[in-house]
Each structure stands twice: as C-alpha cells, then as structure tokens.
C-alpha cells in the first residue's frame, strides 16, 4: 500500500466516474428487498446512505440512521462469490446435425471488465481462497476470465454485525491486501490507499488531498473499535485434529436436531465452491447444454456414490460441512475455509452458529496449555 490520501465525501462520485473512464462496469452495494446486495451501480447517491444492518442468528434487518455514511453496515447475503463463481453457468453445448453427427463446443468465457466498490476484508480473504480453488493448477476458464477483468475497491469495516468474527480468523476488519484501492470511511470522507498499479493510477486521477493527523487517527481508531466490538470468535488454532478426533461427538446430534439441511449456509459462504452439473436438452432433440450449478454438501446427490448415499442424514451432512470447512481445508489450501464473515449464522433459517458448534466440539478436546 502506498501513502494514505483523503477523498472528501462530496467527491465520492468521481471514484465511480474515473473507474467508468477506464472501461469498467461498476458494481456496488445497494438496498434491495430488505438487504444490502451488490449489483450494477454508477451513482454514489444510490449507495446505502444512512443504512445499517442488524444481524443475529437467523435474523437480518436493515436500520436507518441520520448520518451520511454509506458503508456503515456489515455484509449482506452475498458479495463477490456470485460474480466470479457463477451460480449457474453453461459449460458446453452439443448439437446434432441432420445426419445425426454430434458436435461439442465449449461455452466462450465471458469478457467484461467489472469493478466492485465496497468489498470487505473478509470477502477479499475469501476471494484468495476461491482463487486457490478455481485459478490453480486446474483453472476454471470462466472464473479465470472474470477474475482477470476485476477491479476491487475495498472498504474497511467499521460496523461489524453481532454475527461477525473476522478478527478471530485474522481476516478483518481492515482491508490489508487483495484490493486495488482500499478506503476507510470517516464522516467527512475517505482515507484512500492504493494496493496495486491500477489503484495507484486511479489515485492519480482522483481529487485527493493529504489527510490530517486527526483523520488518520480517527480511521485507525474506528478499525480498532470494530475489532474490539466483535463478540463472537472461533478458537484461534488449527481445528483439524480436534474435529476429526470428535466425529462421534454428541454435539453433532444436537446440531442435527436444529439443522434444516437446506444449504443456505453453503450458498452464502464466500468460500464454499461445490458444484453439480446437469443436462438441459432442447425439446427438438437437436441440442443440449451442460450447465454447472452451485451445489451443497447438504444435498443428497453430493454424497451419492455407487448406488448409495455416503451421508444419508442431516447429522453427517452438517458434520461434512464443518469438518471440511474448518479441518480439511488446512490440508487442501493451507488454512481454514472460514473468514469470519458470519453469513452462515445470520442467513441460517434456524440461526445455527458455527462458532458455538465448533467451540462445543473442539474445546473439550484441547489439551491443557495448547495455544
């Protein structure tokens, strides 16, 4: 990151304009259907000004405040994941000609320069994990194409929800890397830091001034307050061994009695990446599309192998989700799959709290004195 600069609030629109000048389609947070969602946005006035988001297990409500801030809320149900790992995507098509010959054609990877304004630190950490999965050795063409064309403007989170615990996973609340530009919102405007060459070029084009010491201090204090105000946490250690040593823990039965196996936690999780594929045949018999969809380890098909379900019930499905997320990921990606965004807590229809479940299963197992 370069030296911090300051963008006065009344000049926020220039950020959208300069990004647009570079040929990006701007996306940002906005209020829709009672939540903050990310969609096309080119007008700073359409940001969620004066909006807050009260979140609790199984509960999400927007709140209205008499202030001019537009990023004074914790995350809504989705942010970057659907923009990169498409919920539904055609992979290839097959056509049959008059002679009955089949021709297969891969779907062309999409090409569109998109900029997302208002990305949180937790989602940038999740993006790094999605990159590891989709842009690694077996790169996914659609994902890689969308990722390459992405410009990210992060905003430090000054207002974590009751469900947030990014401080304990080490992924927030401040944007530390992964963004081209990082903002800290203050009443009068934004502290601005560039995180890439593209971000530095943007800074050069924006009406920035040097921040005062007081503004720098305020920004640091807001982030520290956001860190201190988080009330939930995951145990700050690798839980893999504790989880896999407790596959018969009674807590799995306890949580299964509250779990709907509906897959909402998976869908809102910014790191979950499972998918399934289906055929979409045309009724005229001349073509079919192969479509990839978001899947979930809570669905039956996910564990269907050779004529039987490996995970026939809710207990084994929840256990799969949690042990993979907090255990197996360490082996696959070198860290836990949880970035502390708390979405799975707020958007669970019955309010299951991953931090409570993990703590209940892992704490008793922790030897004395282990860090």
């Amino acid at each position, binding site marked *: 990151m370069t030296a911090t600069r300051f963008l006065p609030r009344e000049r926020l629109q220039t950020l959208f304009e300069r990004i647009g000048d570079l040929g990006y389609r701007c996306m940002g947070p906005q209020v829709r259907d009672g939540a903050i969602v990310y969609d096309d946005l080119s007008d700073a006035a359409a940001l969620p000004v004066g909006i807050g988001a009260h979140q609790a297990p199984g509960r*999400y409500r927007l709140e209205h405040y008499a202030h001019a801030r537009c990023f004074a809320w914790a995350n809504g149900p989705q942010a970057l994941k659907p923009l990169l790992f498409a919920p539904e995507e055609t992979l290839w098509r097959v056509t049959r000609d008059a002679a009955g010959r089949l021709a297969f054609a891969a779907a062309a990877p999409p090409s569109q320069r998109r900029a997302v304004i208002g990305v949180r630190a937790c989602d940038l950490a999740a993006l790094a994990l999605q990159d590891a999965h989709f842009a690694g050795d077996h790169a996914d063409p659609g994902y890689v194409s969308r990722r390459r064309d992405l410009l990210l403007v992060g905003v430090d989170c000054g207002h974590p929800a009751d469900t947030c615990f990014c401080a304990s996973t080490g992924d927030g609340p401040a944007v530390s890397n992964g963004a081209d530009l990082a903002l800290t919102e203050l009443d009068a405007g934004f502290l601005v830091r560039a995180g890439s060459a593209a971000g530095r070029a943007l800074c050069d084009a924006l009406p920035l001034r040097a921040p005062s010491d007081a503004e720098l201090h305020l920004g640091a204090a807001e982030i520290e307050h956001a860190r201190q105000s988080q009330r939930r946490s995951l145990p700050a250690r690798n839980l893999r061994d504790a989880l896999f040593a407790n596959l018969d823990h009674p807590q799995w039965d306890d949580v299964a009695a509250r779990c709907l196996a509906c897959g909402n936690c998976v*869908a809102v999780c910014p790191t979950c990446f499972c998918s399934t594929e289906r*055929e979409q045949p045309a009724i005229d018999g001349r073509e079919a599309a192969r479509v990839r969809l978001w899947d979930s380890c809570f669905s*039956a098909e996910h564990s269907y192998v050779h004529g039987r379900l490996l995970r026939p019930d809710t207990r084994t499905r929840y256990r799969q989700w949690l042990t993979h997320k907090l255990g197996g990921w360490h082996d696959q990606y070198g860290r836990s799959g949880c970035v502390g965004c708390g979405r799975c807590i707020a958007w669970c229809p019955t309010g299951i709290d991953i931090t409570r479940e993990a703590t209940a299963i892992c704490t008793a197992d922790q030897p004395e004195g282990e860090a």
Partner: protein
Amino acid sequence: MTTPPKAPLPPADGRRRPRLAVHKLSSCDGCQLALLNAGESLLALAERCDIVHFAEAGILDLDAEADIALVEGSVSTPEERERIQAIRSRSRWVVPMGACATAGGPQALRNLADAEVWIGSVYPEPQHIQALPTADAVAAHVDVELSLPGCPVSTQQVLDALATLLAGASPFAEQDKVCMECKRRGQVCVLVTRDAPCLGPVTVTGCGALCPGLGRACYGCYGPAENPEVPTLAQRFADLGLAPDAVARRFMFQQSGAEPFQQAAQDWRRRAPDGAPGNAGSAEQGHD
C-alpha cells in the same frame, strides 16, 4: 439422482414415433395448461411424438396405448380408481404430474377429515356424490416411473423430462430444496429478513423459487424435498410467533397428502387449543 434410475424408455421400434398421452383425474387442468402453454416447444414436441390423448389440446382417445402417459389429478372417485389401472396397463412410462397426481392435491385435505361428513354437510342430496374416502396420489394405486410435482408443474420441468425421455435417457429427478434455487438466483431470504413462514427449506424446487422471488413465503406446492426436516422448520415457525394451528395450516395447502407435511399438520393441530381462533397476526403469519 440418488436411486438407481429406471431403465430409460427404449427407442420405439423404428417404424413408428413414440406416443404421448396426457390424462386427467381429479384436478383443475392447470398442469395440462402448463404443457399447452409451451408455445413453439409444443409444436417441436408434436414433431417428435404422436400426441394420442390430450383433452385440453382437443385430442381425445382415452383408451389409446402410449409410450409416455402424463397423468394429472388425484385418484378420488371409484371410476378413477379403475381408470388409473387401465392407464397403467396401456402405458410404458406413467408420469404423474402436479401436486394432485403426486400427493393428492388440495382435495387430499379430506384425508385429514371424515369425507362422508363433509359431503353430507355440503350437498343437499349426497347420495349422488361418488367419491372415495380419500384423494390419493397416483403412486398409491399403481407403479410410476417418474414424478413431476408442483402446483402447477412448470412448463420447463415437463419439457425437460419429455426431451430426456425422447432422447432415450433417464430423466433427472430434482431433489434440491427451494432454498438452493433461491440463493442461486440471488434472491433475498424472506424468512431471515421478514420472519415470513417460508417452506423453502423443506420443499423440493423445480419452480425456480418463484414465490420468494416475488417477496412471498414458499407454501410448499412442490411438496417435500429429499431429507426434509419438517419438524425443525415447524418449530421455527412457532418460535417466530405462529400459533400452533397457524403452523399446522402452513402444511395444509396442495401438499397435505405428502407424508411429512401431513404429519406436521396433524402434530401441530393437536397442540392447538380446541376452538382456538388462530393467530390474528398479518396475512403473512400463516396464510401467505
């Protein structure tokens, strides 16, 4: 697909095209209309198979043999009880479509009551009514090869099944819950943001998560999904403030005949105090 698929429909012997019949039992015809509304796709379908019986399209031959028999409606009269056996004997693939054919439909509400008493209280001359004591799913009477739930079925769901069958493959049986489809579409959860008593977490999709997409709670017209945690969801509705009889009513729409929903309806009716007026809250609190 979590059960071994049925053997696909073998190609016709090459000298004739596959034959499609669309039958009707006790129903509103909405599922036939869903197919009739397919527009150009219906013409494409007619080029690939012979439609031998389809009353809403004006093609009538009740006794025609068919390779694929779509059946709309529940078995709720003695005549239908006979007729579904005849349809079975003349059809290679029997495919119930819609909530009535797959679970009994709204008329299966009588399965929770004394149908004879109801008939006596409604009709001045009940002796003219020929009705079975229960309205049943087709599968309660004959073996079926595939079920297409929904009230009504979606046009695409029926076309996908027919296209797959005509291609000689086994149709995909949807098992995902409405929530999965709802999240794939980027819709905001009405249960979490508004405490709406949404049945999406226990209902199989196929509808495209239509109701939550319009800001309404799912009322379960496609019926229970695989592994439906119905008691857990019913308890959640009660925790959100629904009175026991309002909880029961959530499971008494088109799918009251589906076992897990019927069980929840009965369980929560038992918990309601006799003669309770029910929850006096907003329309969303139980009647959504």
